[in-house]
């Protein structure tokens, strides 16, 4: 696959490491009353969609950025590549 890095342009997926579902960004609040339950879901429950999927990829052999790819798991079509840091901020991770 070719990942069109938002800053570096198209790069071979071999330069990247895939972590999986971008829901890993949405780490629960450790102080929540049901934190144990939330972390359980965060750690273990994943959707496995046949189609559009947002996933985390790390450009280990590149600029070391984490990216959020919107990728179709059936066709491998990548419709969007974002810097994960921007995505994390936009999802309200404010620390």
């Amino acid at each position, binding site marked *: 696959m070719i990942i069109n890095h938002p800053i570096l342009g198209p790069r071979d997926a071999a330069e990247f490491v895939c972590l999986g579902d971008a829901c890993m960004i949405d780490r629960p609040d450790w102080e929540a009353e049901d934190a144990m339950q939330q972390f359980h879901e965060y750690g273990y429950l994943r959707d496995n969609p046949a189609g559009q999927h947002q996933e985390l990829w790390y450009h*280990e052999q590149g600029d070391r950025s984490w990216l959020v790819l919107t990728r179709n798991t059936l066709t491998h079509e990548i419709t969007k590549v974002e810097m994960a840091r921007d995505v994390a901020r936009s999802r309200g991770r404010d620390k």
Partner: protein
Amino acid sequence: MSQSNRINGGLIDRSQTWDFTFNGKKMQGHPGDTLASALIANGQKLVGRSFKYHRPRGIFTAGSEEPNALVQLRAGAHQEPNTRATVAELFDGLTATSQNHRGPLEYDFMAVTDFLSPFLSAGFYYKTFMWPKAFWEKIYEPIIRSSAGLGSLSMKEDPDSYDKGFLHCDLLVIGAGPSGLSAALTAARSGARVILADEDFRPGGRLNSETLEVDGMSGSDWAAHTVAELSAMDNVRLMTRTTVYGAYDHGTYGALEKCTDHLASSGGKPRQILWRIYSKRAVLAAGATERPIAFGNNDRPGVMMASAVRTYVNRFGATPGQQVAVFTNNDDGWRTAKDLADKGVEVNAVIDTRNQPPVIEIPGARYHRDAKVRDTIGRKGIKAITLADDQVIPVDCLAVSGGWNPNVHLTCHQRGRPEWRDDINAFVPGGVLPVGMTVAGAANGQLSLASALQEGHDQAAAQLKDIGIKVAKAKLPQAEDEARESVAFWHVKESDKRAWVDLQNDVTVKDVKLANHEGFRSVELLKRYTTMGMATDQGKTSNISGLAILAEEAGKTIPEVGTTIFRPPYTPVPMGALGGRARGKDFRPYRLTPSHKWAEANGGSFVTVGNWMRAEWYTRGNEKGWRDSVDREVQMTRNSVGICDVTTLGKIDVQGKDAAAFLNKVYANGFAKLDVGKVRYGIMLREDGICYDDGTTARMSENHYVMTTTTANAVLVFRRMEFARQCLWPNMDVHLISTTDGWAQFAVAGPNARNLLRKVVDDEHDMSNEAFPFMACGEVTICGGMPARLFRISFSGELAYEIAVPARYGNSMMSVLNEAGAEFDACPYGTEALGVMRIEKGHAAGNELNGQTTAHNLGMGRMVSQKKECIGNVLSQRPELVRDDAIKLMGFKPVNPETKLIAGSHFINKGAEANMDNDQGWMTSVAYSPILGHSIGLGFIKSGDTRKGEIVRAVSPLHGTEMEVEICSAHFIDPEGERLRA
């Protein structure tokens, strides 16, 4: 016999004659020949034996689709089996042998299987070798294995080298036939970066094999002119002998270039290169493959594809026969008859399945309309054919044309599914093609020359437009549209003899019918049940005919039956090419520690740790075995001082205003309040609460920390920290950079460690215990101003330091430390002694941090803070992970001190049966302690912290051992830490 079948003309260089041998027989050929064309020129009809029935077989095609003519090329370690003679270029001195026979090719002892064929129908193995069950392993399988397979390997290491590479282009054109050349020309003249790849050594495709004209010159001349123009352009990379074998995601293609296969010797250069081609767009111009018609005994040597016969005659000046008949269901077959007649080869019959006037008048040939070939005669070479009306016609070659199948393979490597076109009786590309690919020419069903040239241009132009390249105006190459009418005709029903569909796998029409009859009605099941379409040719000449016969038998239409899925590779790719350079010691990169050279010169023995080569011990004098060296190193270190290269531990430079807060999140224990000039041991958890890694982090200044990780996890910890920094806490000012390779770091351990370092560290640095206590760190200078970092940390339990210098000084530093230590009888120690000492001290390492254990298990449960946000602390408190009777890390010593403990042993209470229900835990690490004089171990055991002094059994069913051990503290040495604080 000297080139008895050589005729005039052709694209071979007759000014040179080359010698080669086939089965030891001396033959001659010319530059421009393939092995197949040279064999034909020399009148060699019989070239191999079939896979299952050992039937005599001859050359069937003139291209990479060849099912029959598989030979072994070269000799000795260079021997290569299953090479298609039709694509093997001739060179002077080539040696080839036929395969799949016992005894001489002409008298194969295994041919007896052919007479047993009534019993060997589809599914024979599945049906026959069922009973008795015990026979399978001892009798059936060895016999089947010894008779299976085609060629044989040399069983020697491949002496050739292989390479890989990466290419980029705007437009990749796959195939250099008429449409490919036309496409490449359009793109090249428009200034696009073009790669034109073709599997042949001579570009031109069918233009070299036929007599059609382009732009008023012969097709082959036009091809040569076009190639010359393309070759002269900087923006074109013309790759001959290069097969694009796979279409991968996003315009990436795999290609195999055969660089030196056509030479007697590779000259030390890579024999083949596996290219990864990144294209913005691609035009597939892979052409089409002619398909046979199945009839009785249609596999005899001399029965060939009609297009192959004219290729040998036109391109290679070699005729496969002196008396040829043509059997066709389409107009194109007639052109073979005409080309042969024009060359003076006798064509005595044209048999057309259609009832219509002759397409072309062929002088001397009798035309049989609405006729069929029912059978052939001649076991080792065809002698005559029998028509359906029982007429017998003597021939020594039968050219068969059953129509043309577009080469759609690469369109299907992702989600393409071919579509049937009734007007040409063939599948054309359909479904969703690989991103960026379009198809032109015969591969797209444009079977006539003029339409192929036109479509090559059109597809290239459309592709360029799509990527914003302006298409240069140019005159299109002109040619005529030749007649291409055909009918769907797959097999001769009047044949009562076996009619072959798949020559390579010996699948007959009857086998296909039987498969359908037995319920294998899906084309994918048909393939697996009969093996049709498997092996080196992947059914290029058989698949479509086979599924057409299945459709007929099942009463379905051909599109209803559909094709099997084509997968890469298009043609076979040698394992050597896939491996590339990754062989032997270059299989993967290796990393050397800074003191490697010194270690080599001082008795170091090396062990692979990940990619690292580390000294495991340093042999001295007359030490006989590793234990002698390791025991000595431990004793010398504990008695005085030892030096160990610990550079391999991961080092991460952490800086930023929020560095402290960040570390506090990635480590489970507190890091917010670490003072400048201090080091702290830290433990990292996974989010699920299991221990991930441990190490120390030193605070060098207000906003600057130096973290160490375990050797194995250096890359992974860095990755996780980047994840935490960018994805979890994106607004922290914290920056990471690896410095693992930048600093040579040495542990200096033992009661004399300080005394040794005092000689090296510059005098202005106070080394006293008060000024630089346990867990202190700082920047110092050594040897008169050299910047260094000093950490007072200990893995051995001794008074110990780690000192780091810029890596380029590391080798020298090792030497200096040993020199400075000479007066204390210092010694270098390796990873084994390091391991012994950490077990003696009860430090956890990889065996204990194995991805299953928690801080609670390691006796560090209280370190996991619940008062801060950090990775893993929430789930670490799951009830099952914090049970009172959880396994705990303990020490173990044998009740009988002579006994050697065994790692991996499981603990069973005394008197209990040794089974998993009674499992109490397991031994993780063992060592012989030269200090204590007996074997010691670390391990996890249920409620271990309350069981000190208890005797349990350490059982290893794997080793068949059982021994009594006493549970004790994991700190065998210096449990109160007096030595390391000294």
